[in-house]
């Protein structure tokens, strides 16, 4: 690898890994400004380097937008974590369960659900205070998005981090409590 490319890949890693804004990730135009016009090539190189340590570069484009300058680039883990890893990074197991159920419930409702409806669904298994706290946390972290009229949809982070197809398939194939 040419030294210039190596330097650029290092710079790209710094940009992507160090949280610069409230939301993680860097916009395409920011990378172009810092790395030059061939920033996609640099990201490709970085991606192959990160693969060795179980990470990957991921891109999220806003809906109906083709311009890569407006896309957000970030680094995610490549292989799924185990529950222990998640709990040691600050997630409680009941929070993960509430998040999983919320995301799956919203997907099953075609991506939109009334907040009240989701609360009632979660309240079957969790106390009310915990449900309210969790939903607010998921909104704050970007997993859920608050729309007008008390509607919740999936947020940008859910789009990046969660493989929706896989999640639904696994749920459909899972054994239920009574079976």
């Amino acid at each position, binding site marked *: 690898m040419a030294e210039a490319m190596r330097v650029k890949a290092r710079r790209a890693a*710094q940009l992507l890994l160090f949280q610069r804004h409230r939301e993680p990730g860097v916009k395409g135009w920011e990378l172009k400004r810092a790395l030059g016009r061939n920033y996609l090539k640099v990201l490709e190189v970085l991606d192959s380097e990160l693969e060795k340590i179980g990470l990957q570069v991921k891109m999220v484009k806003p809906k109906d937008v083709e311009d890569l300058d407006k896309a957000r680039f970030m680094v995610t883990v490549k292989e799924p974590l185990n529950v222990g890893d998640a709990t040691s990074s600050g997630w409680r197991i009941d929070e993960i369960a509430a998040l999983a159920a919320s995301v799956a419930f919203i997907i099953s409702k075609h991506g939109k659900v009334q907040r009240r409806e989701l609360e009632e669904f979660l309240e079957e298994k969790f106390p009310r205070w915990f449900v309210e706290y969790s939903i607010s946390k998921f909104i704050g972290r970007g997993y859920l998005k608050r729309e007008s009229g008390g509607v919740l949809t999936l947020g940008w982070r859910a789009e990046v981090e969660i493989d929706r197809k896989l999640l639904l398939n696994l749920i459909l194939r899972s054994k239920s409590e009574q079976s």
Partner: protein
Amino acid sequence: MPKRKRRSLERARRIIHTCRMVEERGLNPFNVEVREELETLDDQLGELKSYEELCLDVEAVNMLTKVVKAQKDWLSEEASVFYADPAFIEYKLRKMPTKAIVDVFMRAWKPIACVEEISREKLVEAIEYWNRLKPLKSRWGRFTGGYKPREYIDLEELKRQGIIVDETFYSDLEKILNELKEAYETRRSVSYWSFISGGSFEETVKRAYMLSFLLTYGYAELKKIPLREDYTVAPREPVEVKAPSESLPISIDYERWRELSGGGSFG
């Protein structure tokens, strides 16, 4: 208004309302019979004459196009998850033990990796900032004229600063209501922007503020004029509304006021 025309307008409003419900609540967009509704609008188009009526018709057509887009998104969504029956997914979720949901989720979840620690560069910048920063006392002194010992503030001062209100607020409110009644009796259709528009920007904001109280207390009502950034405002007898209240933010900026008043000065 002839009964036939009234029915046509009601139909257009019903279509707008239904489409809005689909858009905002995420209801199944295929519940809307788009072709049928377009035919209805087409049939009744000849009866609509005035500008407002035609605007209502255009808004209904516009909302139907949004439903068509929602139908496209709905199909894409179903295709993306290999169409699984939502009711079945919900049933499975309700029956799955919490631990099983977590296990399943962990296999589909690949969280973002980021470092939240401060970098060396930022640390150097922070130290430089700290060294340049003047003590708080000297910075605050510039704005407040130095430290003052704490003292009690009297009622008149609180009123003057607008922290508490006195009776004049209610008499002003009554004055605005009377003005609205008077305007409504003469014109029947009072535009929101023309009503709140005053001689100065400050007065305009004050009138909008007072009117918002009349709307909240139910002494006035606001109706959107389709396809225009304006509303009609009308007085009414206050009624106890059991449905949850809705808030409607309307921003007023200096440029907007200048447009309304045809120029003027601040304050």
